[in-house]
Each structure stands twice: as structure tokens, then as C-alpha cells.
């Protein structure tokens, strides 16, 4: 097989629906909603199934699903883990920026 394929950028400019995020992450609806309500996965727009998510969060939701399966974490544990991972990500981004600014 050698066909050039469709490529979707998972960034802030693209949005996905709750249903799409569930399909792509493997999270159950109740789990995802709990993570949204706890603030670990930020959503916007109306309530219920009208939630919209930045496509960047596909990676976050997939991580949540992986951590749930690999560590048998419940949603409260996932919520804490995701918040800490987000802090690590932000710090790594900051370090990378500072490193870029440092002369060689």
C-alpha cells in the first residue's frame, strides 16, 4: 500500500466533539464527563453532549485512557495524574524555550 493519506493537525485551531473524543480516546462517556467537570480536560460551549474540545486534547484523553488501563486508575486518580502531566508539559515547554535562548 502506497497511498498518500489525509493528515489532521491536532492543535488548538481544530475542534472535536464529545463523541469524536470518546471514539478516539477509548474513554467512557461518564469518565470523560467527570474529567471535564474536574477541569482536567477543559471543554467549551454548552452542556451535555454539546461540549467541544481543542484537538490538542485528543492526546490528553488518549493518555488518560492509557493510564486508566495500565495502572487501573479511577477518574479521581486520572484527574490528578492529568493535571500533573499538564504541569510537566508546561514546564518542559518553558525549559525548551529557555534552552533555545541560551547561547551555545
Amino acid at each position: 500500500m502506497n497511498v498518500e493519506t489525509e493528515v489532521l493537525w491536532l492543535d488548538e485551531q481544530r475542534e472535536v466533539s464529545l463523541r469524536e473524543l470518546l471514539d478516539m480516546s477509548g474513554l467512557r462517556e461518564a469518565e470523560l464527563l467527570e474529567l471535564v467537570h474536574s477541569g482536567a480536560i477543559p471543554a467549551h460551549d454548552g452542556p451535555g453532549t454539546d461540549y467541544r474540545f481543542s484537538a490538542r486534547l485528543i492526546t490528553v484523553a488518549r493518555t488518560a485512557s492509557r493510564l486508566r488501563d495500565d495502572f487501573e486508575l479511577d477518574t479521581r486518580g486520572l484527574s490528578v495524574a492529568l493535571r500533573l502531566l499538564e504541569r510537566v508539559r508546561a514546564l518542559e515547554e518553558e525549559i525548551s524555550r529557555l534552552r533555545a535562548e541560551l547561547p551555545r
Partner: protein
Amino acid sequence: MKYADYYAALGVERGASADEIKKAYRRLAQKHHPDVSKEPGAEAKFKEIAEAYQTLKDPEKRAAYDALGSRPQGEEFRPPPDWARQHGGAGADAGSAQFSFDEADFADLFSRFGARNGALAGEDFEVPVEISIEDAFRGTTLSLSLSMPEYDASGRVRRVPHTVKARVAPGAVDGQRLRLPGKGGKGRHGGRDGDLYLDISLKPHRLYRATGHDLFLDLPLAPWEAALGATVEIPTLSGPVSLKVPAGTSAARKLRLAGRGLPKPRGGAGDLIAVAQIAVPGELGERERELYQQLAETSEFDPRRHFAAEGT
């Protein structure tokens, strides 16, 4: 195929209880999980641990695994002729004589346990990809060679090499994730095909250091260029441009070339930031030394004036 010693992977005895196996898995998973550990090789190590645990935690799979006997890790081997039929593993329907064990991975032997005939979604794959800063600037077409499991109608699995071509438009940054829908493992019994996720990172560059869409570049200046100002040529990704260095530029001053960084996917671009450095000749000629000497005697400039500030 190569034998995998699942007990050794988890660091337990062959007679370990289900509880001991679970504890060993949890301990190792916390250490090597790729979302937790940034150690090189963590991902491969975790895959080995997870594969071992997936089989040993399930009594049916563990019995089938034990029936293969104990061998050294990595030894080339084939399951006994009637193993698949007795234990219901991969190839059971077709009879192991026709099943090509050579084209399957060791873990594939156990993948069919518990499989139902309902729709099964194909596996998603995540692949790290390194591209150059030039490729991020111009866009590039990736050609990815992947080995994916494929199942025939009777559930036999084999590894099939796939080449996936993906056009990455200009503007990828370090950490950019891309999704290629339907390019993961094939779905079974009407299940959807899995997706392929690419995790882009940028290779280190000889001149530029990227952060987001901005690029940093060290700009060495001769002492007189820094003091008097100068117009210097700066290499950018779209060719050289002239930059006016203002008189009195000290080291670490940032000179910004707006829009000369990496392009953004929906228009615009980051900046190229040249960071001034003062470069001094390693050896001075006689005349140069004289001139510097004269300057030292004439100048009243004290770069360390602030050392003597109040309270120190």
C-alpha cells in the same frame, strides 16, 4: 519467532501467585510507563512488561503460555504442533500446520484469546517522527515503514509491512501531533480501522534552536561591530537577509527578525531572534594589540560599575 520469557520480564518465579504478578507489574509499570518515565528505552521496556502482564494475568492465557515450556529469552522457536488446537490460541481454527508462525510475533500467539466475533476496532499506533527544521519550514512528505498485524477470516494473524505516505504541510513544531485516520491496524468483523498518530520532533540544527514557531540564532559580533554598529548578513530559512546591528549592542541583546521563523499552519510565521555575542580574536596581531592598548588607556568605560553599588 523468538521466545519471550514473561516471568523474567516481570521479575517473578514461574510459580508466582496472581497477586505477586500484579504487584510486580504495578511496580515496574510505575517505573517504566512512557507517560511517566522519560528514560531512553522506557517505551520498549514498558511494552515488554505490559505484554507479559496481559498474558500472565489471564489464567487461560497463562496456562497456554506455560504449556510452551521454559526456554531462554530470545531463543528461536516454534510452538508444538498441537499447541494452538489445545489452547485455542492464534491459528486454532486453521490448524497449526498451515499457520505461519514465522510471520507472527510471539505476543500474537495470545492475541486471539477472548476474541469474540463482534466488531473489533483496529489498533491505534503512535509513532515518533523526527524531521529537520528545513522540512518543518518547507513541508515534507513522510514515508513511514510500519509492521502491522493483519488477521484473516479465521483469525490467523501475521505481520504485514506497510508504507504510509503522509504530507506534512509547512509549520510543524516540536511536539506537534498529527492524526492519520484509518491508517492504523485493520478493524475486524466490520470494526473501524485504527488510526495512526505521529508525534513530531525537530532534529537539532547546526545554527537554529526552535521553540514553538520562533527560531533563535547566535550572532557573533566583533567588538568594534558591537560598539560602532554594523550591517551584517543573517542566514534565514528563506535565504540571507541584512540586519542592522545598532551601535552599543551588548552581548545577549536580542535582535528580532519578524516573520523569519517557522511558518504557522494557518498563516503568519514565528520570528527569527538573533542573540548577540561578542567574539574576540584568539590571538592579536601586533597592530591590533596596540590599538586595543590605546583604547584601554583612553576609554573610561567600566563594565563592572554596578559591582560597587550601595551595600556591597
